[in-house]
């Protein structure tokens, strides 16, 4: 493990970012699907 300025888990950072991506992707479709009902 290379020492770094901050100690943070890469996978945890990436997981949060993937959740944001999923939120926007499904959010936009679900929002307008529900609005159209």
């Amino acid at each position, binding site marked *: 493990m*290379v020492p770094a*300025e*901050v100690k943070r888990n890469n996978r945890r*950072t*990436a997981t949060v970012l993937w959740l*944001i991506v999923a939120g926007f992707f*499904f959010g936009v479709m679900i929002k307008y699907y529900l609005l159209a009902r």
Partner: protein
Amino acid sequence: MDAAHAPTHGHAHDDDHGHKPSGIMRWVKSTNHKDIGTMYLWFSFTMFLVGGVMALTIRSELFQPGLQIVQPDFFNSMTTYHGLIMVFGAIMPAFVGFANWLIPMQIGAPDMAFPRMNNLSFWLLPPAALLLIAAQFMPGGGAGVGWTMYAPLSTQAGPAMDLTIFAVHILGISSIMGSINIITTILNMRAPGMTLMKMPLFCWTWLITAYLLVAVMPVLAGAVTMTLTDRHFGTHFFNAAGGGDPVLYQHIFWFFGHPEVYIIAIPAFGVVSQVIPAFSRKPLFGYASMVYATASIAILSFMVWAHHMYTAGMPVEAQLYFMYATTLIAVPTGVKVFNWVATMWKGSMTFETPMLFAIGFLFLFTLGGFTGLVLSIVPVDVQLHDTYYVVAHFHYVMVAGALFSAFAGIYFWLPKWTGRMYDETLGKWHFWLSLVFFNVTFFVQHFLGLAGMPRRIPDYAVQFTEFNMISSIGAWGFGLSQLLFLYIVIKCIRSGEKAPDKPWEGADSLEWTHLPTPAPWHSFEKPPVLK
């Protein structure tokens, strides 16, 4: 960046450790950020040529009024795929190539956070590009819907549209993976002592850009997925007959589309912010304000999307809001422009090719930004919407902005990448030819737009002939000038003079101060010592 010139392992021994793979599999299976960066850059240039051929097809048809070379359907297909290929296949991958090459070296990290995902991010691009090209050969030809893929045209277009949607999905996934990689690398893998506010501005601009991408790429993916389900699965998101709304597509698209402009422009700002201080031999003026201005531009870019669709119909209050919000972007952009000028002020300036392209960027991007301000004014935009004024405006931003910045960056870092110097005389020729022909092509398009010539048409009224002829001649000159660039790069790689470790005396980021030239295949396996 105030990193000390501390002795590190960089010069002392070769980091290659003798296990550099060779042959085609070096590239296919690469997890090395430098190799992947190289592949991104070559892919980008290839797509630049493909998109360029499409541009020349468009300009050749428009050389004279009437239909001479192509049929209208094919012309529409050319405008569509020229836009998609240049935005998603050429400019964006070019800056991702820069990010791959430079971010680990500039923050003192050994590689990107997720090297295998990095490999996948790149290798998704060629199939997507092939889909966009294959779409031309589908029954009915390419989808002539414009790069914006507006409904209802896109929901009714032929089978080429499905290939296009799939390509956009793949390109989006690639961009999202690249962005997650960049954010994680910058947030978590900086060398001890490399605080966020010590990072070179290029890293800052990419961190902000990557957040933009994570937020808006999924929205574009959602929009084209809804287009797909409208086409094949009986939904009516954008179909007024089924209770949907075609204008909804425009809102969703431009919620992606306006930040997309900054996704392209902000890394370009980052490159210029490295080049101008190096050739002015001064630190960047107002580093902190540059960071805050970049973040402000990114935040504002989420709030202005409907200025692309003033004429689609919206309440006057909404028009006023979007007009004021858009003009507000001029403030942080002005901060950046003035800071670049202040960096040069009383600097010990020299004008090698990277600096020439950076100064060209500064003048012409500012002009493109200014015409953007003109277009942000609602009553003016109602007149100019969908005219060649808009085409001129965004080509000043995209070509003279992003592309010139990419050229500045390529000439600046070529010695670091290849270990050889490019031909300075030919580089200057490339700059001046590009500058002159760019303006010949696009400056006259302002006049065409002001006179009322609509965009995306293969034929036009005869009074527009002269300016169109000038523009087409400029386009051919600009296109051919880029072959000179290809020659310069190949000549540099094959037979350029050996570059010194630090060919630019004003360059002060880690890749110049702590690593040999050319950069070793593995760098910073042990982090550099910074003060």
